[in-house]
């Protein structure tokens, strides 16, 4: 198992470096001179030249990329043009809000999605199945920011139950988390339904049924543990959607997270802030994907076995989890 974790951790290094180079390159070729933008319209060419020198913008491309990478490895994403503060400090101050909102949405999506999907699969072709699938189809198709706006209209403007924007106690997270999780609930429900359906008629489930095991026990002990593997995989990609959604939902609720920061930075052409927040998000995303992969290995003994001794490997391969 340690070997697997190590391999995944090592693989993260080139990916993160690649992301950093890619983002730097995209931003490098953006038309417009950052030094001129920073100084404003009244700056003279001399002032711009001095600023370019100070920012290192007159260096060749490769030198700039190299400096950017070295600084990044030291946790330095440069200074924000707009706020004149280190980007990393801004990001660290804002990251907790973004992470918290993504995690809450993710938990809601997982719990509700798996529940809906399992109900739909167990009661296949019944009314509850159809209703669950309708909810998920609508959920997948609804723009989350629009749902957020509508929730604000109903629960803040009309009913006055929940705050419409800002940050504070738990009540400030209810609307954003719900709006952000609906898409996740929907795709999780679809994935859960199809993977539970796949397992529910497997031979070992039939065997258990023939032995007289109760349907509940079959579901909890045989079906769900086996159906969990594809569910966890889709949960990983779902988290990406949550994180992306959070960035946009934050702007609706004026939450001081990375999304609001990034959008402000983009609108003000604050390139170090844009670069920093994107690379930061990519690193966080990779870490989450790593955690998901580790959970995946934990749930699926076949993967764990591949990285353990060769003798045990044979006995694990091709044997479903907790098969009866």
């Amino acid at each position, binding site marked *: 198992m340690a070997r697997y974790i190590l391999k995944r951790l090592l693989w993260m290094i*080139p*990916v*993160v470096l*690649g*992301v950093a180079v*890619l*983002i730097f390159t*995209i*931003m490098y*070729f*953006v*038309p417009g001179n950052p030094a001129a933008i920073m100084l404003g319209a009244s700056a003279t060419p001399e002032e711009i030249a001095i600023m370019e020198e100070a920012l290192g913008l007159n260096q060749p491309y490769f030198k700039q990329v190299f400096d950017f990478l070295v600084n990044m490895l030291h946790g330095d994403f440069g200074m924000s043009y707009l706020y004149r503060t280190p980007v990393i400090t801004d990001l660290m101050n804002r990251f907790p809000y973004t992470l918290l909102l993504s995690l809450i949405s993710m938990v809601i999506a997982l719990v509700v999605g798996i529940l809906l999907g399992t109900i739909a699969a167990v009661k*296949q072709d019944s009314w509850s199945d159809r209703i669950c699938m309708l909810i998920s*189809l*609508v959920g*997948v*198709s*609804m*723009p989350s*920011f*629009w*749902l957020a*706006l*509508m929730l*604000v*209209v109903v629960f803040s*403007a009309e009913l006055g139950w929940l705050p419409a924007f800002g940050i504070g106690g738990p009540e400030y997270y209810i609307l954003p988390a719900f709006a952000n999780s609906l898409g996740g609930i929907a795709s999780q429900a679809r994935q859960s339904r*199809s993977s539970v*359906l796949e397992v529910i008629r497997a031979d070992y489930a039939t065997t258990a049924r023939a032995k007289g095991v109760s349907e509940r026990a079959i579901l909890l002990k045989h079906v769900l543990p086996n159906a969990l593997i594809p569910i966890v995989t889709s949960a990983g990609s779902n988290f*990406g*959607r949550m*994180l*992306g*959604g959070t*960035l*946009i939902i934050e*702007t*609706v609720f004026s939450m001081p997270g990375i999304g609001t920061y*990034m*959008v402000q930075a*983009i*609108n003000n052409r604050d390139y170090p802030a*844009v670069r920093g927040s*994107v690379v930061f*998000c*990519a690193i966080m*995303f*990779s870490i989450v*994907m790593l955690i998901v992969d580790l959970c995946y290995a934990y749930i699926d003994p076949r993967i764990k076995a591949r990285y353990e001794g060769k003798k045990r490997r044979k006995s694990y391969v091709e044997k479903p989890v907790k098969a009866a």
Partner: protein
Amino acid sequence: MLKSQSKPHSQEQKSHGSMYLAMQRFARNKSALAGLSLVLILVVLAVLAPWLSPYAYEKIDIINAFAKPSFAHPFGTDDLGRDILSRMMYGGRYSLSIGIFSVIISAAFGIFAGSVAGYFGGQIDNIIMRLIDILQSFPQILLAIVISAALGTGYDKCIIALGISGIPVFTRMMRANILTIRSMEYIEAATSINCRDSRIIMKHVIPNAFSPLIVQISLSLAYSVLSAASLSFIGLGVQPPNPEWGAMLSAGRNYITNYPHMVLFPGLYIMICVLAFNIIGDALRDALDPKLKR
């Protein structure tokens, strides 16, 4: 008895290609037809907007600003008194065409890169897939945001940003397809009876790689329309005077507490459009791979 019953059936199956049978299954699916009709209606409304829309989309009518839905303005008017229904119909020209063109870009590059990676394998495969790994280490919408931030705002730039951000999905899918198909028994069988490579590619590889592709195109269209709206909503994509759906939402959000109709209807319109593409995608998946249908 049994024989005589099954014979004409199998003959009929033989005389039609698998595509024909899939389309037959698709046509029998009521929700698929509903989705298809919805898309057709939206396309017709968008294409014929200059003739069908009750007002010109840019016609300002300050006296009627913020009008609630009424007979004259079924979906109300916005802050400048422009008719929301007309703007939504015109908006389809932006939103739908952004969806279509960006998916064409993603599919063209993705299919090419995926086929090359899957077919040649080895180092080329390695290089392409590592690049795709890097592109996929962002959430897709974040990649679109970054590219738009670099390119700037506007219709064409929005298409490019969404197109590039969709490439990894198609590349991965095409590569996986080609790899699975290459190791299939029917390919082995075709090789063993001495089929030419060209025949194997034309008759076996392409048709089998094709069906997941159509499904993906339909689902990508849904995602693309949704992402285009998201981009415009945060001020990237298409800019406000133009009636793109996301831009309309963005313009309406400031008046949302008093005039929710400005946001309600464009959002519903986006949802219906995305829903229709999703339904078609699901139905295509069922029609093209009947084994999957439960």
